């Protein structure tokens, strides 16, 4: 079942989404494009798995969603980072930096 692979990256995926949306409101497809672009195709997850994550974050009120017209005139669902989501992002970035500092310290000094 595909969910197991997603589970592995759930926390990371959530953080990346929050980070991408910190720059401004985007719809799902744009987020996916951005994700691929910045990660240089590093994350090999089905693109669809982005959506359960978006809905989950919306449910936690870290994101707000609104249906708006795109530049091409089509209606799409735009996600915006809420203030609660901003705080969460800060907390996660901090946590991540601490972890990666710790890990790289260990890797550098282990032998």
């Amino acid at each position, binding site marked *: *079942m595909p969910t197991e692979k997603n589970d592995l990256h759930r926390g990371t995926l959530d953080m990346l989404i929050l980070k991408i949306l910190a720059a401004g409101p985007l719809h799902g497809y744009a987020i996916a494009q951005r994700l691929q672009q910045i990660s240089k195709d590093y994350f090999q997850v089905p693109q*669809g798995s982005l959506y359960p994550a978006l809905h989950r974050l919306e449910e936690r009120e870290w994101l707000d969603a609104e249906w708006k017209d795109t530049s091409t005139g089509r*209606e799409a669902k735009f996600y915006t980072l809420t203030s609660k989501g901003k705080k969460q992002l800060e907390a996660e970035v901090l946590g991540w930096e601490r972890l990666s500092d710790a890990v790289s310290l260990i890797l550098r000094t282990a032998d």
Partner: protein
Amino acid sequence: MRWLSRLGHKPLVEKRLDSELHFHLEQQIADYIASGLSPAEARRRANLEFGSVEGFKEECREARWENRLELLLHDIQFAFRGLRKNPRFTLVAILALALGIGASTAMFSVIYNALVAPFPYKDQGRLVTLRIRDLDQRGNGEDFRGLLSYSELRDYMEQNRVFDGLIANCEIDVVYDSGENNSYLAANFVTPGTFELFGVAPLLGRGLEPADYEPGAPPVFVLRYATWTNQFGSDPGVVGKSFSLNGVRRTLVGVMPLRFAWGGANLWMPRDPGVVNVMRGAFIPQYWGVVAHLKPGVSIQEAEAEINVIGTRIAPTYRADYPTHFHVVVESFVHAVVGQGFRRTLFVLFAAVGLLLLIGCANVASLLLARATTRGREFAVRAALGASRARLVRQLLLESILLALGGAIVGVLFAWAGILGLAAAMPPFTIPSETVIEMNGWVLLFEISLAIATVVIFGLFPALQASRVDVQDALRGAGKGLGGTIAKSRLRNAVIVVEVALSLILLFTAGLFMRSFVAIQNVPLGWQAEHVLAGRIPLPAQRYMTGPQIVSFFEPLIRTLKSTPGIEAASPVSATPPYGGFGGNIEIPGKTHTGEWESLIQLVGEDYFSVVRHPLIAGRSFTEAEVSTARKVVVINQTFQRRFLGDGDPLGRTIILDVLKKLPDAVADRSFQVIGVAADAMNVGLENPVEPELWIPYSVTGSGMRRLLVRTTGDPGSMNAAVRKAVWAVDPTVAFAEGQPLADWLNTFSYAQPRLGFFLVATFAAIGLLLVTLGVYSVIAYSTSRRTHEIGIRMALGAAPGDVLKMVLKHGLAVVVPGIAIGILVSFAVSRSVVSQLWGVSSYDPLSAVSVVLLLLAIGLLACWIPARRATRVSPVTALHYE
């Protein structure tokens, strides 16, 4: 509140989810086409990269709160449908659970109400009673007495520092004269503080108050609820009126509620301070039963220590009332009232019920395991269609909980019916009359939780397993070949083995109970209880003190009775058989012996032997003249003759009734001449061997209790009124008390308890057998249906129906036989503790063992035979296509 508005717009939410995902796909396709791919290739690649649209939709839905609620409702509906689709499974599972829950709740409620909290009294756990034990009697000492004289009572009351309340009651016979006729009432004198100690508010009027006990206070009494309804028609107007009780006009001041039945009395009167000893029959001072309340922080052991100090101090004052070496036992009031024997019976029954509950759970477990295996494929399909594992588990769990709730609801109904039945079947006098048996809510809660736990555990494990199933494997292999995985079928078989073993234990126990019950019923009484009316004649002590005074009452009474149509004969007696009167020392002139020679002594009239049809094997009974003139003649039983007289003609021998000198109206000439020998007959209850017994004319002494036995031509119960009238005609201050057919009395005291035990255990065993049949059947039927394909191949290859039958039966016996073997071993191991409280059976009772084994074997074979037959009837073509 966003979710609320979304909940109301379900189609909109779905549409939006749909368009959000499609927007993504379309943008992707458009981008690919713009970068130069063909439309078909663009679509293919976009779909591939996106993954399963339906799967992600499902995940999105699950991410939403309100959808979770909706999913739950949907899952519940789904679970209902699943259960309805397979009504046989559902019905059997619910029935199995319900029987277990119902029976054990009912039984536990009885135990709780009868043993743990039988009384409505305030703080009953801290109430204690006193008993004096003679340490020189065998074993740990025997009870010497449980009642105290009044002055002794005062000593304990005044000298102790361990009780903050000590009260006592004393039985007294009351004749209530309504002006038109009289009737007997069992009354209690009570001491100050009684009503305060028990703390039960009266239903009408008031209880007894301190002023009522003052010398010169107007005579009053308080009535029991049952007496108020039976004798006074529940008339609230009787409170405040006065009634003639034993010739004294007493005012009724209150009626107690249903559950107040202290001392088993019909009415309670304040102790008369002017009377030191209450007399019951001439020269028999009534002693007092004691109930005390422990002071806060005082344990029973501490109280016992102090009470024994007081006992040792006061014993010299009451030399005749204390044995040389004694111990005063302070015992919990609840324990003292509910008999030890009955308590053990109830515990055995409870164990039986526990077994039944286990069987019920095992049955449901095996059903669920079997079902889960057949559904492996269903789960695989649903997993392939995008259902998440959590969702599958949740659905199975819901189904289990629904099943457990169904079982619980039906179980409550069973428990309710069971409690009504048990309360009606409870033999009188085994539990206190204050006890009301009602459903115990906590137990019910416990049972229901247990049922849910069983169902969930056995529903969940297979569910987890099923959800982990490899989709392709399951789709390819399910439903064919071996019955599920080997591990799973082992677990299923183990459950059935345990179930068979448990039900064998139950059946064996039931067999022992039945054998014991039959044994007691088949004890030859040696006399006949049919057509005999028995009752007590409470003679007022003041006017009936001597033998001649007692003759002056009984002679005219018996003359009247004999001339009454429907009555053949009547006789006074001192104890109702199968109990043989009071015991006492005897001597035979010229015979020396070590130890004491004791015999039971009955005071009877000339017609006693013909009234109960007790056969004489030598000599004769008394003549009317011998009785009326109190001649010193005696009839002995065979055991008496064998033990004390030895060989030679017993007739004409002399027996000295030493015991008669101890009576208050001591008999001067204690030499009696043997005129007859009666056949041995039960005289120490039905469960004990016959003791030496002798019969003398009732006119010899004025002491002792008097009862009356009346031989009737028809139903003895119908003569009750005639006897009461005859008694009243001789002396209006005497009433015929507790009159009932001797056969009924025997039923109540000797047969009711074993019958109840047998009836209950047999009911449990029957339910257990039913469950086990269902269990074996469902497992064999299940595994046989799984093998239909294999059977088809075998038959196509030339196997005869007989071979198939043999194969299925062999599989069935492989679970039934080990179950039986384990069951019989465990039965033998535990039966000793059961047999210790049964009478007339050995713990390895071969008849019970053999019949139980055969019965289970037959049931097992039957349960296998039905699916086996069905298997042989399947045509090979159908079987090969069977999935």
